[in-house]
């Protein structure tokens, strides 16, 4: 009989201790952020979707070698290029050379798993992670990013 009552007493005591803890927590500072009105700045290494990096003259650094395309596990990068002839001065002579120029760089963000293998595989530091994370849409097409277009928009 005594054990029965002491158990009831200890049980009530344990509940009171728990309530004491929750009461103390009540006066602690708020840790959450009222999201749409206030956002948290992403850390420097945050891996968002990829963006092209530009040279000083505004053209993309990308040389269209296709390493990112091959490294991507989900096959979400597709790029195209054309070869352009240009003249360069070598030892006082004008010579025509060919180089590849990026014409399209499409990222299908719907299948991207944000692993970062493309950025790592790039030998020219031509792509980086965007810090954008407020991406929401009800249309699939909104996540087919034309990165070359985005670069031009950023420059203009």
């Amino acid at each position, binding site marked *: 009989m005594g054990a029965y009552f002491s158990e009831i007493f200890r049980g009530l005591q344990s*509940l009171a*201790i728990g309530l004491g803890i929750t009461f103390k927590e009540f006066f602690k500072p708020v840790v959450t952020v009222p999201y749409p009105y206030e956002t948290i700045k992403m850390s*420097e*290494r*945050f*891996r968002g979707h990829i963006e092209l990096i530009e040279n000083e003259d505004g053209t993309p650094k990308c040389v269209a070698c296709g390493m990112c395309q091959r490294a991507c*596990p989900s096959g979400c990068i597709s790029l195209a290029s054309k070869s352009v002839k240009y003249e360069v001065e070598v030892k006082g002579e004008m010579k025509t050379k060919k180089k590849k120029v990026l014409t399209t760089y499409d990222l299908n963000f719907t299948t991207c798993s*944000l692993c970062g293998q493309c950025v*790592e595989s790039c030998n020219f530091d031509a792509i980086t*992670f965007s810090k954008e994370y407020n991406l929401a849409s009800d249309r699939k097409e909104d996540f087919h990013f034309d990165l070359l277009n985005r670069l031009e928009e950023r420059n203009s």
Partner: protein
Amino acid sequence: MSGPIHIQPGETFILNVGPQHPATHGVLRVKMEMDGEYIVKAETVLGYIHRMHELMGENRTYPQVLPNLSRLDYLGALGYTHGHVLAVERASGIEVPERAEYIRVITVELNRVASHLFWFGAFVMDLGGFTPLMYAIEDREYILDMLEAVTGSRLTYCYYRFGGLYNDIDDEFIDRARAFIPRMRKSLKKYDALVTGNIIFRKRLEGIGPISAEMCRKYGATGPVARGSGINFDVRKNEPYSVYPEFDFDVPVYDECDSLARYYVRMEEMEQSLRIIEQGLDKLPEGPIMPKKKPKLIKPPVGDYYQAVETARGSFGIRIVSDGTKNAYRFKLRSPTYSNMSLFDEACEGMMIMDALALMGSLDLVIPEIDR
């Protein structure tokens, strides 16, 4: 219009437990044959989010599989990637710098604490207490922020590389990790007072949901489930890998075999993980995080390789059969929760349904990892 269903004495009915919508993340269905509130027979139904990770491992090159491994278990992702990189490193003979190994251990243990914290919150919520989940998530958030600053993402890290790491840690990370240890110890005391002592919590777990050591051996259960049944098995101690032999930590083992024992094991494991992190931060050597010599294309020599690691849920094994090409010939994943869950059918026979749900909570199931 049909009237209420009258069940005759001795008649049983089938109860389906669990969401089945494929878009939700934890889709486990349990078909229970019920006699009133007692379970006569239970059958777990799997495969709702099967994603063929093993087959993907055979179709992709070794580095391309890396992001897949963190999608097995979204709560303790680093442990699984650790297993994969260790297996491939062993297969192709890549040497890992010591600093990288230490950082791997520190981050894996942080991830283990985060995983156990979430389990703690979810488990108490299964039993009807909502508040501890909020406190646990607050502490877990601290770890996630810390790991995000280093790895770049919050859940699916993809941080380890063959031979080393993706990024080095900075002083800010070390300071935050050092500040985290006393904070977490204080929180563990708080959880102890709030939950462990609680009479309702104890009455629902003490002596309920027995899983014997024989049953664990029969189904191959590992991790906290086996250690709560008195089996002293921890891959970190029994088959040491990485730099774990250099750390001083204990493996908590309880003989009670009930749901409360499994709870105790996990709570104590968090303390032990904090000890490992503390020692790791003290011992952290300087140096590179990637080896100087590393093959550009990873092509392990022909052979059969196996590597087991202790993740937050138990022993995770990865078997790679290589035929010398850049893709694996066979990529087999042995996931701990698959074995831990398979004993549920036998363990819950004859139990009341709410006790069975408490037992299921104490198994710490992560469904994407079962279905793979």
